[in-house]
């Protein structure tokens, strides 16, 4: 199977992230292992500037975000050619504590193939280059969450 035939899902969505469904879509008959990362809205943050969150409001530059998610998937395939399926999903809109907001999942034949590293790389890169922003609404008002990564030419 060539890379272009392998399942690659990338989407910005306002719907619930369905892990069962996404996992099924990136499982081939040769797949034996999946590493999945999900991020959730924290209601309580204790590290750094400790605070509470009522909800987050996510927005995205959708067509660019989906193109950059595809780029993240392409980068994963370039670094870990054994990866079979990839899903990269960011939920946007008003999201409350405990809600999954983002998912990166990678599948492979075996678990010792870099599948964990690939998922880790995916979420790190998403947080660097995929144009999504969140505003935090808490007991003391609202504030945009500040990113700090400056993309380089070619990214």
């Amino acid at each position, binding site marked *: 199977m060539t890379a272009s035939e392998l399942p690659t899902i990338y989407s910005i969505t306002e719907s619930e992230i369905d892990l069962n469904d996404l996992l099924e879509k990136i499982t081939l008959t040769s797949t034996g292992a999946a590493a999945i990362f999900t*991020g959730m809205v924290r209601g309580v943050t204790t590290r750094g500037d400790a605070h509470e969150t009522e909800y987050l409001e*996510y*927005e*995205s*530059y959708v*067509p*660019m*975000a989906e*193109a950059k998610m595809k780029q993240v998937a392409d980068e994963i395939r370039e670094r870990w050619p054994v990866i079979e399926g990839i899903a990269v999903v*960011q939920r946007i809109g008003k999201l409350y504590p405990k809600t999954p*907001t*983002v998912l990166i999942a990678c599948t492979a034949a075996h678990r010792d193939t870099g599948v964990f590293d690939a998922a880790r790389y995916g*979420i790190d890169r*998403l*947080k*660097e*280059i*995929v*144009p*999504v*922003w*969140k*505003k935090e609404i808490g007991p003391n008002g609202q504030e*945009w*969450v*500040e*990113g*700090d*990564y*400056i*993309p*380089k*030419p070619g*990214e």
Partner: protein
Amino acid sequence: MNHIKLLFFATIRDRAGVRSMEMDIPADMTIAGLKEKLSVDYPNLKESMRSVLMTINREYAFDEAVVPANAEIGMFPPVSGG
């Protein structure tokens, strides 16, 4: 002159007060030139121009890049998704 479309997101949109705008710019204008022009025309955006990320047709773009005709220009702060 080149016709372009600007899209603003997050803090930049808040400061611009609009989601998008269309304008005509000189054919040889660079990203740096466009930022300079916006700083002058829209004083609210001036401070944002130092840290703004710019895109041309959905790819990150840098100061020396020339803005092509019919470009879709995105302007936003460093991303904070996840």
